[in-house]
């Protein structure tokens, strides 16, 4: 539930940032920092689950291996996300990309066939 | 002891490359060096940097030696660049001495 609310707010920010009159430097800094740190966190959060799931379902890695691999990939994802967001020429593009990528990862993590058996 | 040889060898290599950097030319040379000298120093510089890997390999093995070589490049680099700011000519000339010392230490050790 919290994750969906967070995702929804990211989309809202993306839409809002599209206004042409967004000239305040402070707003840019806040937006960029939030997108990089918080948006990047959300992407990384779901990347972990998605990678682990893919590794186990499709890559047939053992769960321990998959967990550790997901950690390594999360490292690359978070670093890359922050750099990419700050390199982006427009914040609107950055927020939209975060929203889209997060949705994709959530989809993989939640909906990929082969849900783990009940404990 | 091999590490000392690596250090001197890399120092010599960096000194050679430092001497032919465009920015440092007026600090090091009293009259501009000929193109042949510049080319020779460039080759010598890179060669000495590469050769400095050998004592590291002799001291350890390939993976550990390579790690040590990379770190030693930093060490030799610092040993050159910071004194260079105080005495450019002498620190570069010391490169020649260092090259000789590198060979000596390797032979003795």
């Amino acid at each position: 539930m919290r994750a969906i609310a967070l995702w929804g707010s990211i989309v809202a920010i993306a839409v809002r940032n599209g206004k042409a009159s967004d000239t305040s430097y402070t707003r840019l800094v806040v937006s960029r920092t939030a997108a990089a740190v918080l948006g990047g966190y959300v992407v990384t959060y779901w990347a972990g689950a998605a990678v682990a799931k893919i590794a186990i379902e499709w890559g047939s890695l053992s769960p321990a291996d998959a967990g550790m691999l997901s950690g390594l990939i999360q490292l690359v994802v978070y670093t890359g996300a922050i750099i990419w967001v700050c390199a982006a020429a427009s914040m609107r593009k950055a927020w939209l990309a975060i929203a889209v990528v997060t949705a994709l990862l959530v989809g993989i993590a939640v909906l990929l066939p082969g849900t783990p058996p009940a404990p | 002891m091999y590490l000392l040889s690596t250090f001197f060898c890399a120092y010599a290599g960096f000194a050679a490359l430092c001497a032919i950097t465009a920015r440092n030319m007026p600090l090091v040379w009293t009259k501009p060096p000929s193109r042949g000298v510049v080319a020779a120093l460039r080759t010598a510089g890179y060669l000495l940097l590469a050769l400095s890997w050998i004592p590291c390999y002799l001291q350890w093995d390939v993976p550990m030696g390579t790690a040590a070589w990379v770190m030693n490049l930093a060490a030799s680099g610092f040993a050159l660049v910071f004194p260079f700011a105080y005495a450019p000519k002498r620190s570069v000339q010391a490169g020649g001495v260092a090259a000789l010392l590198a060979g000596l230490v390797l032979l003795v050790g």
Partner: protein
Amino acid sequence: MEKSLTQRMDWLHTWFGLVLGWLAFALFLTGTIAVFWFEIQHWAQPELHGAKMLSPEATLQYSVDYLQKVAPDSRRWAVTLPDLERHPLLVLNWLDQNNAQQFARLVPDGSGRKVTTVTNGGRFFVDFHWTFNREVQDLSGRTFQWTYMLSGFVGVAFLICTITGLVVHKKIFRNFFTFRRQAKSVQTRWLDAHNVLGVLSWPFQFMIVLTGLAFYSYLYIPTGMQMAGRYPSPPGVAVVGGGGPGMLWGRYASDAVGKVAGNIVEPGNPAPNVPIADLFARAQAEMGTLSSFTVNNPGRDNATVRFGGTRARPDAITFTADSMTFDGATGRVISPAGNTVNAVQKITNVFGGLHFGFFGGTAMRFLYFLCGTAGTIMIGSGLVMFTAKRRAKAKSAAARRFYEFVDRMNVTAVGGAMFACASYLWALRLLPQSLSDPTGGFSGGVYASIRAVPLDQAMRSDLELYIFWLAWGVAAVHALVRAPHKAWAEQFAAVAALCIGLPVIGYLVPNCDIGSMIAAGDWKMVAVDLGGLCIGLMLACAAWKMSSKRVDVRVGNAVRAPALSPAE
């Protein structure tokens, strides 16, 4: 929005570098000191100083004889063998007749002298830089630990700065050897220093931060592990999170009393056992230097003897998990030597090995220390450069107040961290041994973690941490009230005084004075004292240079006079 990619990357490098650089300096400082943490651990335990160590075989025989005398009918003996090169301490654990755990921490010279000092020692520096002294309880990824995430975030920021630093350094090869120490602009001088330190050691910096983040990367945002935890794991596979506490130690819990693990088998009938010394020789031939051994049901017919190799061998980079088990009665090999790690863990073992630098001996450790120092100074120079560059150009009163604040934060981060570390070393030396934890373990857990206890109940390990944090607090207050340019010089001078004083205070504690240690040939202990002395002398030079001129004021025509703080 900045016009070019380089400008945007510069923004990222500057702001992430500044805000997280304050913490990153402390991390790098403690990490660099931690290269020699075993030696500092040895330095902190006076009972071990100058002792004449037995050979590994003699140590083994001595341990077996001791346990045979003390607990011949025990269900389990577990011994941590001393690391004779770096930190010799012999820890014997056993189960007594009520299956309660007993232990003895001994000087491995065969005299039977006990080591009663229980200290955070050098281990503090390792633990601080990834836990900030908060307990890290759960290493299987079920919970989020905020201090661990913070240290991870600082690491990610540093990684980003290494990458963006390369991107924004436009003339990186043309200016490879440039250090314009006499440039008119203070900013240029600091920038050149920052660049030289960073570029020459770039491969090391990139490697150290990447490896540091990588080997426990699954714990920062442990969603991957949580997802994996929902699947049943196949039998015989390494335990999730099995990197665990053992990963951090070059050898198994070299100081902490080991927990004698479960799975205790009922003892069989008494039967003569193969001499453990023989099994030791065989295991050593297979695995190299051994770090521990465990005997189940010694003196019975179902005795087993398990030898553990060092987690980190000095002759290989990669961490290993080697062990070998023998049948105690017949000497038959039950489980042979050979790594049993799975594929991904092999990668993290390489990363761990590279990061900790247990390999290669003293020469390698000096290289690590040198490059780590370069990184630490690089961060410091970056922080100072920020204020040097912007303070003179500050246009509004609000901007000037901000840069004043940044300057004071810089002093707290740089000077404070150093002052805290130096004070901690003084605490290690001067706190009474008698305050040590009588149970021989660490009440706060495996890692150096701070806990709130009333002062009369605080043990030595608690007080050491209190002094560290208190010293940092004092430095922070000092930075708050003094003018920055005075605060810099004063804090550096204070740290220099503490470091130079390290060999001196050794004379106040029995068996710690440098004179008799040189005579006894205990170079591990002497090295820490002398190292501190050298660093102190260098810091004293730095403090002297700082006191004769202002660090952050641009020479030449200032746009407006720098704001004077009330303390000036």
